[in-house]
């Protein structure tokens, strides 16, 4: 009977592995087929040389960084405050941070377009800069579940109260405590939130497309609709970016685990 169960497990694993690996192999193979009759990296060369690629990718990178900074500055003080002073508020804050997983992104951005249109009180879609700001806020919202969760988990592994009291006794103010005591202690949690956010933002399509901003996601879609081989090259690159983000989370997550718990 034992042998039987192992065979079943192997079959499940092999079927699963082939379902996940074949599309990756196929995508890679397809991306090499641009030159007739032989494999080449032409598709990648064409993609990298495309000024639109550089612009949109740069734009999305910038957006991702801004999103991470704002997301961290919003989440860390809130999570800290909830831990320290208002544990009763925790379920409410948690509920709000999980809402972006419940409300589809397309609904949220539809709401923005109605609320912040150029004839409203806060015309955030009026100019390009303002729309960039709105897009960044939408990314902060989208990444809130990941960012807040990982920071909240990070705070649980340290003794917030003792650290704060110790710092207060030494005469530190609120800002000093936050930036010099709390931040360094949950760096790994912040980083894993940051990389997840990065992975979410970099290829995001719906928000950027409906807000009409020149981000990487809409560019991907445009290339997909008009070219044959470049999309596969882009998909390979997108997969590598996601892979790198997750790998970095693993690296930093491991460092944090060796320290406090166990």
């Amino acid at each position, binding site marked *: *009977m034992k042998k039987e*169960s192992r065979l*079943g*497990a*192997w079959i*499940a*694993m092999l079927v*699963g592995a082939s*379902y*996940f690996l*074949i*599309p990756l192999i*196929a*995508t890679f*193979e*397809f*991306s090499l087929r641009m030159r007739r009759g032989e494999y080449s990296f032409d598709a990648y060369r064409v993609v990298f040389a495309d000024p639109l690629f550089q612009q949109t990718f740069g734009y999305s990178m910038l957006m991702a960084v801004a999103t991470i900074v704002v997301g961290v500055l*919003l989440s860390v*003080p*809130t999570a800290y*405050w909830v*831990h320290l*002073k*208002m*544990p009763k508020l925790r379920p409410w804050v948690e509920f*709000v941070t999980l*809402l972006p*997983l*419940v*409300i*589809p*992104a*397309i*609904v949220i*951005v*539809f*709401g*923005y377009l*109605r609320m912040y249109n150029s004839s409203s009180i806060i015309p955030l879609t009026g100019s390009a800069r303002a729309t960039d700001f709105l897009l960044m806020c*939408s990314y902060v919202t989208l990444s*809130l579940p990941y960012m807040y969760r990982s920071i909240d988990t990070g705070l*649980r592994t340290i003794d917030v109260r003792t650290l704060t*009291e110790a710092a*207060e006794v030494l005469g530190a103010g609120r800002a000093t405590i936050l930036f010099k005591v709390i931040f360094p202690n949950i760096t790994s949690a912040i980083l894993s939130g940051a990389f*997840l956010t990065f992975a979410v933002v970099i290829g*995001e*399509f*719906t928000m950027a497309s409906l807000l009409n901003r020149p981000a990487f*996601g809409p560019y*991907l*879609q445009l290339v*997909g*609709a008009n070219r044959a081989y470049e*999309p*596969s090259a882009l*998909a390979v690159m997108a997969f590598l970016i*996601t*892979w790198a983000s*997750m790998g970095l*989370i693993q690296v930093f997550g491991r460092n944090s685990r060796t320290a406090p718990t166990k």
Partner: protein
Amino acid sequence: MSAEPLKPSKPSPTGPRAQSASTNLWGVVPFFLFALMFLLLPTAYLMVGAFQDGDGNFTLNNIRGLFEANVLDAYWMSIKISATSAFGGAVLGCLLAWSAVMGKLPAWLRPTLMTFSGVASNFAGVPLAFAFLATLGRLGLVTMLLKSLFDINLYATGFTILSFFGLTLTYLYFQIPLMVLIITPALDGLKKEWREASDCLGGTAVQYWRYVALPVLWPSIVGAMLLLFANAFGAVATAYALTGSSLNIVPILLFAQIRGDVLHNPNLGYAMALGMIVITGLTNAGYMLLRSRAERRSA
């Protein structure tokens, strides 16, 4: 949620800095202000708009509009795709997680599977559509291989990646790993002793699963399935990149409506958004209910 709340739950004033509750509230004001402006109010705006006509008068016409053939078809198609991919993802994800947790496979397979699941569950959107076009599109690798090796013309059988079946197959790529991530902790929660006890009493493997493991697991499994459903229901990018606007599903229809008022009734868009929130909201509520139930069991 499993971690205990902070121990001194009584508001213990920290020395001379004792503050009243109202002062404390200021610490969370930025967060709630942000949530209000960029999450709650925009959504509420649509929900109210769903019950208004163009001039702001109260009406149920938009809700009635949801039951027009075109919109109803889109909802039905969306529900079918989400349900199929959630069910398939749950079954296959469970099998994979089971083989990693209990299959007595080499030890390195489990962390590899978990890491890969983390990547694949985030590999959605436009690039995923490209990957499946390269695999099962007209010139895709698998399509070509089937033709040259087995002389099977996939597209002659009526299959196309731009269909219900094709989209479901594509969604499974992020649904299965998500299921693996959610269900593995639940499988870990099955105690070894239960299996041993079942074996000692002369129970077969089937009996163990039928009477012990599955009754313990089912809230987790069904709950996860609901989450997967909501996950697929709101997805736009993959479907849009794969099929353009040719496939009539809710997020695509709403996308087209926002872009260019294809339904010739702006407020019908609000109603569609409301419908989406109701559906994803209900499934998520079900998920939370079942998850708390599963946690009570394992406690």
